[in-house]
């Protein structure tokens, strides 16, 4: 309506016959109140569109870094709040929690020993069979300071960036499996694209079947667990609604090591072309309320970059 009335008024002015410079300046002065703001806005938008890409990138980074301290400060305040809420717990509760942790530590200690023995066995076999060694990662734990989960994108902001040597496309995991990958790295913060994001895509495989499938994030409904879907599943693969099959990572993408859980698939159905199967993947509900994540930084990549 506004645009239509503006153009009607503007064309009314244009139909006033021959226009000289004096008349033009008069016309500009008499422009209706509708026209002036629109012309200014269109002009400024046009100027912004004309700006070179590097300048826009510079502007974006500057505005991002400008607001980053605010998010970091809020995150520290949250941690402080958590600390004080824990302080209000009774000593009996804390002693009980300590005992539970001691039990867990003992179990992990045992697993560590098994892990070391298995690693030694792997390296022995690699040498024996002259195989290339498996990719190794450095782990960096970071706190989540912001969550943006909507129908357009799913991303979180973490409290570590270039200052901890994080790099773009590094895999991000948590105790339940895959979280996503790093999309942008800033000086003190990084943006992580979640595995549930509609733009996320990664090579995967079904547990117990080493043929690759493609995992995609998808649009998620409110008040439900996050979901994604898999494509290119071989037609002979079977699933059961009662015992869902795990979708795990493959080392093909060089982002994640093999075997990390992405989600579970219950039902597979034939794709449109009939050659493969597709299925909906149920992701963990914890993805929506993550507080801490771990970033996997490939050691080989780091060494080559340092050289």
């Amino acid at each position, binding site marked *: 309506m506004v645009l239509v009335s503006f153009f009607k008024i503007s064309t009314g002015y244009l139909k006033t016959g021959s226009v000289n410079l004096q008349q033009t300046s008069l016309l500009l002065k008499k422009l209706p109140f509708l026209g002036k703001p629109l012309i200014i806005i269109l002009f400024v*938008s046009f100027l912004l569109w004309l*700006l070179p890409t590097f300048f826009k990138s510079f502007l974006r980074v500057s*505005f991002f870094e400008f607001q980053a301290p605010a998010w970091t400060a809020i995150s520290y305040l949250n941690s402080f709040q958590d600390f004080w809420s824990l302080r209000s717990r009774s000593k009996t509760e804390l002693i009980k929690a300590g005992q539970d942790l001691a039990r867990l530590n003992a179990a992990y200690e045992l697993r560590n020993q098994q892990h070391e023995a298995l690693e030694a066995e792997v390296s022995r076999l690699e040498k024996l069979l002259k195989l290339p060694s498996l990719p190794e990662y450095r782990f960096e734990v970071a706190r989540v300071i912001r969550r*943006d989960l909507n129908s357009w994108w799913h991303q979180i902001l973490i409290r570590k960036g270039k200052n901890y040597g994080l790099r773009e496309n590094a895999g991000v995991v948590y105790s339940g499996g895959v979280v996503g990958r790093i999309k942008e790295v800033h000086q003190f913060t990084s943006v992580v694209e979640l595995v549930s994001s509609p733009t996320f895509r990664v090579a995967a495989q079904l547990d117990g079947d080493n043929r690759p499938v493609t995992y995609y994030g998808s649009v998620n409904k409110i008040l439900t667990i996050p979901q994604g879907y898999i494509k290119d599943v071989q037609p002979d693969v079977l699933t059961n609604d009662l015992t869902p099959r795990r979708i795990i990572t493959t080392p093909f993408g060089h982002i994640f090591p093999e075997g990390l859980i992405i989600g579970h698939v219950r039902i597979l159905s034939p794709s449109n072309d009939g050659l493969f199967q597709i299925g909906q993947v149920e992701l963990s509900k914890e993805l929506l309320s993550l507080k801490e994540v771990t970033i996997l930084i490939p050691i080989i990549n780091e060494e080559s970059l340092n050289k």
Partner: protein
Amino acid sequence: MIKKTEVLIVCFTTLVTYIIIVFLNNIFARYSIYLSLDSLYLLFPGLYMLFWPGYLIIILIALTVNASIPLPYGTLFVLYSLGYFIIRQFKTRFRKENWGHVMFIAFSINSIIMLIIAVIVDHGSFFTESYWFRFLTDLSLSSLVLIITAPLILELQKLFLKFSGLK
């Protein structure tokens, strides 16, 4: 001098509003709910300020918000400018002190901005039912929160100006 103080105070309160919205979204994220309340940033500069000081605040807030979301940089600037332009038209036609009018303006502009973003960032899901269902639920919840908070945010900004001694 008065103008500079006014711009600084309104800019500050708008940034505080932005931080509160992000904080709310952090909490609601565990229920897969997202509130998009962009028109809250445009109301005070659009209804109570002169064109250029108000527009300066809109430019700053649009560039700040756009920096942290994966939309092409400048998209929000154009969308907020459009919203600001529409508010400027309402300014002389509506009663600014009428909460119903303020709610209506906020709702209309927010819906327009959300709809344009939904069309731009569809990721190939434009013709899927789930995409529009999610969009409509987000829009409904955002509108509900918006019509409750819009007059309150305006009052808050007016209160800040009053405390600073400006009319």
